[in-house]
């Protein structure tokens, strides 16, 4: 849920609660005030009526207000003074209406009378309703307009935040870009943007340094390696060396060779990651590359008794021709290396898709993990563990996706573009 929606949700809930509670409270307080007023009037009337009854024989007509009624009934003995509310039939209106009655007892010339003063409540009730309704309506209106204003303001004020969020979302480290934003009036957003700018700036610098370091290191390692290998080869020609020395020398040579290959692979990987290969401008037909590569590798394929099935249309993605070679080479050599004796390789090239399927031993880790550098399943000593990492990186920089799935004995690598 969006932040603004969440804020709005809480605002609406709170407003509704406050509105309901406030309306109820208001109703009861107004009602209470009105009742108090009526009671006071009734008591006032009682005082007047009592005085009249004691001092004059007849009650004047005006003694009670219009709409009130006064009843006198002789009773044998007095009761308690009570204040009740009941519905009585009103002849003028021709319906039952609420009345408030004050019943008390008064002794006139030795006889007890029950005096009932009734007061019509209808108008007062109407007034109450009108007041409560009006006030509630005004408050509701106020709340709604506040909510609308709030959400509109929020949307407007949060706009820079969403802009920053979008910029971060589409941020790509490999492009070495530094995110910059226009000045903001809100301090928090200005701070956020400044932090993001500084952060990406540092990131770009670090990335650049790392890139240069890797390149230089790789480069500078080549020359000493060339010296080592050439000296070893010179030594091999020395006929005075004993067999044990030759074997040791051979092991040194193997290790140095491996180091050289590793260095070259890492250098290539770094170059691809740093986008030193310009993207191609036209689609590369992968079919001839696949056929040539399979021909180059045919003795390895034969040696392992692998059956190769190829179905390739003349199609391919837009990419650098050298990278296309490396990609195809790595996928195919991978399919051979991890195949089983007498296994099968199926290469399918159709528009937008290259699938390399090979039989192999089942793997016990998530196949996607094999795209990591130096990650190997099992111990293939000759493998550098960089082949799939290279393939993945090539696909990434060219906007293709490379996926690795297993299906029983099948290992399926798919390139989509």
């Amino acid at each position, binding site marked *: 849920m969006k932040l603004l929606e969440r804020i709005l949700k809480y605002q609406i809930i709170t407003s509704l609660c406050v509105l309901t509670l406030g309306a109820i409270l208001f109703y009861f307080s107004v009602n209470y005030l009105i009742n108090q007023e009526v009671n006071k009037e009734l008591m006032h009337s009682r005082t007047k009526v009592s005085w009249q009854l004691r001092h004059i024989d007849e009650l004047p007509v005006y003694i009670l207000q219009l709409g009130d009624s006064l009843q006198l009934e002789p009773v044998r003995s007095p009761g308690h003074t009570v204040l009740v509310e009941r519905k009585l039939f009103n002849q003028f209106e021709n319906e039952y209406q609420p009345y408030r009655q004050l019943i008390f007892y008064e002794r006139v010339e030795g006889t007890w009378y029950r005096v009932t003063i009734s007061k019509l409540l209808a108008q007062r009730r109407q007034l109450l309703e009108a007041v409560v309704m009006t006030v509630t309506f005004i408050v509701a209106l106020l709340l709604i307009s506040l909510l609308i204003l709030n959400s509109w303001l929020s949307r407007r004020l949060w706009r820079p935040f969403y802009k920053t969020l979008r910029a971060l979302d589409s941020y790509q480290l490999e492009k070495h870009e530094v995110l910059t934003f226009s000045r903001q009036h809100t301090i928090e957003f200005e701070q956020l943007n400044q932090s993001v700018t500084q952060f990406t700036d540092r990131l770009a610098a670090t990335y650049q340094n790392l890139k240069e370091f890797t390149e230089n290191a790789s480069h500078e390692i080549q*020359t000493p390696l060339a010296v080592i290998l050439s000296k070893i080869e010179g030594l091999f020609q020395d006929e005075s060396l004993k067999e044990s020395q030759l074997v040791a020398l051979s092991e040194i040579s193997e290790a140095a*060779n491996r180091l050289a290959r590793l260095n070259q692979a890492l250098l290539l990987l770094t170059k691809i990651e740093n986008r030193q290969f310009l993207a191609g401008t036209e689609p590369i037909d992968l079919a001839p590359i696949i056929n040539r590569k399979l021909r*180059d590798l045919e003795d390895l394929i034969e040696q392992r008794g692998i059956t190769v099935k190829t179905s390739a249309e003349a199609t391919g993605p837009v990419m650098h021709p*050298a990278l296309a070679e490396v990609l195809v080479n790595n996928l195919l050599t991978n399919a051979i290396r991890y195949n089983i004796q007498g296994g099968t390789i199926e290469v399918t090239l159709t528009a937008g898709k290259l699938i390399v399927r090979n039989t192999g031993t089942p793997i016990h880790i998530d196949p996607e993990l094999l795209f990591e550098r130096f990650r190997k399943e099992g111990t293939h000593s000759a493998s550098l563990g960089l082949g799939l990492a290279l393939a993945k990186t090539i696909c990434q920089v060219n906007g293709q996706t490379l996926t690795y799935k297993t299906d029983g004995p099948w290992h399926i690598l798919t390139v989509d573009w």
Partner: protein
Amino acid sequence: MKLLLIEDEKALATSIQNYFQRENFICEWAADYRTAVEKINIYRYDCVLIDLMLPDGDGLDAVRELKRNYPETGIIIISAKNSLDDRITGLNLGSDDYLTKPFHLSELNARVQAVIRRRNFQGSQQIRFGKIQIEPQEHLVLVDGHEIILTRKEYDLLVYLIANKNRVLTKESIAEHLWGDDADLMDNFDFIYTHIKNLRKKLMDKGCPDYLKSIYGVGYKFSEQ
């Protein structure tokens, strides 16, 4: 045969020089661009080996200089730069080959011989070794005048072995020569062994003595003794 090596790394240059001297080549050495251009303009070489990164200049300029004034000289670029652009520029300028550091001296030797063979327009391009005769243009191999049929890899292997005759060749250098970048696919070197075995059998079937000696733990040696 006369070679010029333009390379600023002394240790590497000495190794290369020693290797070619055993081949009875004259291998001169220039450690910087200035000396290199001087030598190019005074002497004639069959093949020049050029390192691209020199302390006082770009090896590619030496390639241009050679191409302009002495187009018949063979050129092999040896460089630590493996970028595709450099490789293409080098080859476009007219260099015959491009070798990336580090390399096997035996590989460099084989390439130098191939370049000289190709450049040697007047003379024969034939390769001879004992009873073996190879016609590189036709990919034809004869033993005592009888043709033998070799696979592509066996043919490459034979040419490589003869180019580095009387030398110990490591399994890695053979693997790299035959499979290039895919050499690291060899989980063990059984593949080489298979090719060697087949090649030896085909040669001996036609009456060739066993030229191939296996050196325990190291590799092989192709020699007449």
